[in-house]
């Protein structure tokens, strides 16, 4: 085994106590928030007896002391049982597995949008510092950071769906167009099955939410790329390459960009977390059936098992993304080790 491989395994093992901590803390914090899940589930109708509520409470172990609840929960968790959603009357695992593909797909396309827009914008701005391109680019990226998603999303719907009629207002795909389910990512399934109609329709539905969600990230990427590019373009090796007569494009892409991308990779790594976890607003606006909406709803209805499982999924994602970012580092900068 190479040194890197050993280190990767070490990092994975180190994630175990982190996950355990996350589970225990979520468990305790959720129960510290005031509110009774069974009472919320019963809504408002009259004729609810206290015995009925107690029975339901017992069904979810809510009548036991906290340590007992925690021990039972952990016991089931290690067997792969995430419990039963209090509000949705289904196994938590089902709820989460159903929602994850939609969230991943949206996050991926937002990221794609952010990179496609952000990196070239950053490079262009850096190459002509203080030029018109730079100023316009940075103003746009400033707007991108500042504009709240709910505003951008609704304006997008009004302009592109209502006025121009180019894109659908919400949803993931038109009914009847779904490709055969393989991965749950509609675009990927459409590509695998060669269903171009479905691909087109899915992309049309993805466009507005992905841009809304990705705008902020694109802006951050553009700014970080610009500043690290500026630095890279002033280094000796770039000057040397230019002096050698290497064509401008090659200097920018091969010599400067590869080094300038290191900070960008870090930022993108962090932003993926935001894309996966912070998309509740975008999911609500566009009726996107993803995890963000479910988690927020679960928190409000004090659906403890569902919140715990979802937080676990998020934590795991962060751990994996961090690891992936670090591995990517060592590729971009061989001097670095994990």
């Amino acid at each position, binding site marked *: 085994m190479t040194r890197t491989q050993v280190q990767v395994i070490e990092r994975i093992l180190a994630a175990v106590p982190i996950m355990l901590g996350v589970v225990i803390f979520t468990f305790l914090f959720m129960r510290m928030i005031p509110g009774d899940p069974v*009472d919320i589930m019963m*809504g*408002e109708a009259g004729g609810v007896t206290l015995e009925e509520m107690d029975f339901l409470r017992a069904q979810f172990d809510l009548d036991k002391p906290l340590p007992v609840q925690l021990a039972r929960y952990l016991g089931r968790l290690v067997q792969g049982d995430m419990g039963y959603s209090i509000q949705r009357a289904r196994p938590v695992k089902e709820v989460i597995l159903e929602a994850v593909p939609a969230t991943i797909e949206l996050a991926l396309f937002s990221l794609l949008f952010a990179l496609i827009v952000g990196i070239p914008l950053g490079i262009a701005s850096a190459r002509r510092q203080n030029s018109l391109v730079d100023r316009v680019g940075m103003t746009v990226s400033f707007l991108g950071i500042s504009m709240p998603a709910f505003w951008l999303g609704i304006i997008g719907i009004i302009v592109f769906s209502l006025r121009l009629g180019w894109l659908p207002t919400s949803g993931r795909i038109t*009914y009847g167009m779904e490709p055969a389910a393989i991965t749950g990512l509609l675009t990927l399934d459409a590509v695998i099955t060669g269903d171009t109609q479905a691909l087109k329709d899915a992309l049309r539905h993805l466009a507005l939410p992905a841009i809304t969600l990705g705008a902020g990230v694109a802006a951050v990427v553009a700014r970080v790329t610009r500043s690290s590019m500026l630095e890279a373009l002033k280094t000796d090796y770039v000057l040397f390459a230019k002096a050698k007569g290497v064509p401008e494009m090659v200097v920018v892409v091969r010599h400067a960009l590869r080094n300038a991308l290191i900070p960008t990779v870090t930022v993108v790594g962090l932003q993926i977390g935001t894309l996966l976890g912070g998309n509740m607003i975008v999911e609500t606006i566009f009726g996107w059936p993803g995890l963000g909406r479910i988690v927020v709803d679960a928190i409000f209805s004090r659906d403890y098992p569902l919140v715990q499982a979802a937080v676990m999924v998020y934590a795991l994602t962060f751990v994996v993304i961090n690891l992936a970012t670090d591995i990517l580092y060592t590729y971009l900068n061989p001097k670095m080790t994990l």
Partner: protein
Amino acid sequence: MRAQRGFGILPCLAALVVLAVLLVSVGAVTEYPAQAAGKTLSIIVDSVSDRADEAEIIATYLRAVGVEAEVRVWEWNALKERLLAGERQMYLTDWGSAYFDPFDLVIPKLSTGDRGNYSGYSNRELDELLKQVQMTADQNERKKAYFEAQRIIFQDAPWIFGYALKETEAARAEVTNWQPSMDSRMNLHDVGLTRGDTIVVGMKADKIITLDPAMYRDRSTETVLRNMFDGLVTRTWDGKVVPEIAESWTVPSDNVYVFKIRKDVKFHNGETLDADDVVFTFERILEEGAIAGQSSPRKGLLGPLDSVEKIDQYTVKFTLANPFPIFPQALVHFQIVPKDYIKKVGDNEFAAKPIGAGPFKFKEGRLDDQIVIERFDGYYGGSQEIPPVSVAPVKRAIFRMMPEATVRVAALKAGEVHIIQQVPPDLARTLSADKNIQVKSVDGTRVYCVEMNCKKPPFDDVRVRQAMNYAVDWNAILTSIYGGNGVRLASAFLPGGFGFDPDLKPYPYNPDKAKALLGEAGYFVK
């Protein structure tokens, strides 16, 4: 489940205008003679963020009579825990009623110690009346008792009585025979389309809970399920109970209901619906742990239902522990499920692939995305009293979860959906101007009010509570924030519900009277 309401810029601006007017008027009423110096009444008005604007206006009205009022915004369940513990003073709350009867409104909200009694209000006389109402089947007697109850509640003023909002829905012009109903159900069996054969509904909900009619407690789920499942009885859009799967029913004694079932009702899998299915449906709910080890959260909705028996293949007898005259109203909310199918496939599989006897059969869908249903061609026609009595005119219906009001409206205008739930007042005005859209409102079944903690000073004093009622100008609030789309309430009774007394008028806006009462109670007034 709390109602979600969207607010646009217009109501906020309007609210600001009201505030400004109020501030000016506060300055103008200084000529009122200052009362003998009393202690200043200082309160915190608690609200959830949905109604924070309204809370601010209420606080401003209270300040106008000399009360030091501040608003605190909460997350609902956090607030609820604190107010149930009796730690809060005054809170904006709301409560929905599904039975068109005070049974699920006044009784849980104002009986001593009941589940929804957030004000801690207790009046023995009222408790007696409400108990009496629940024990008798004589409608005149019940009505009389409710009238009396209203007077007591009005006089005791445990809340600042608020209003009921109208529910506004909208549909595209090509939708025919469409009428929003008071209980916010949507009976797509009646609705037709002049163009196309698939009707799409934009739901206000973020999700529905389940496809099993025994496992939910919220209205959005019922709205969808009611199109796949029929009940023994149903309700017209304005709240009248009519037979559906039942052919007729008799009430041989106050505690017994006997239902005759139609013989031509088939489930989506072709099996005939009979008494066994009806008995199974209710036993599944009554029995603890009967649904894949879980208990139905709907048991309490059946009131004192004791047992359900099959008399013959098409007759079922319900026996109650005590009279429960609104039993037929309750039965509207129970959908009949197929015994043999559930016994065969199990409860979990049933929830995944539900089969009912309603006008549409389940096709596919996800609870937090969309539910697709298709016309059931073997449908018996539905209630004989709600035309059309036939299979559904549309071939397919899709319920899409669209929690954002602005997006529902945009999708309706863009023609992506045909009917949308819950249009906010400001958007309703713009929609009405669109020739392709029809907008309709019905009386809502949700009471909005400000509850006061009657157990602790200052609100243990009835004069202070009455003063609060005189101090707030609800008409101005309804106009400025809700576009005049609401009805003032004199007490905790809804105009569309049973036993409502139309002669009891709401507290008028009378700041002088409020000041007089506060002064009498020993508080400083302006």
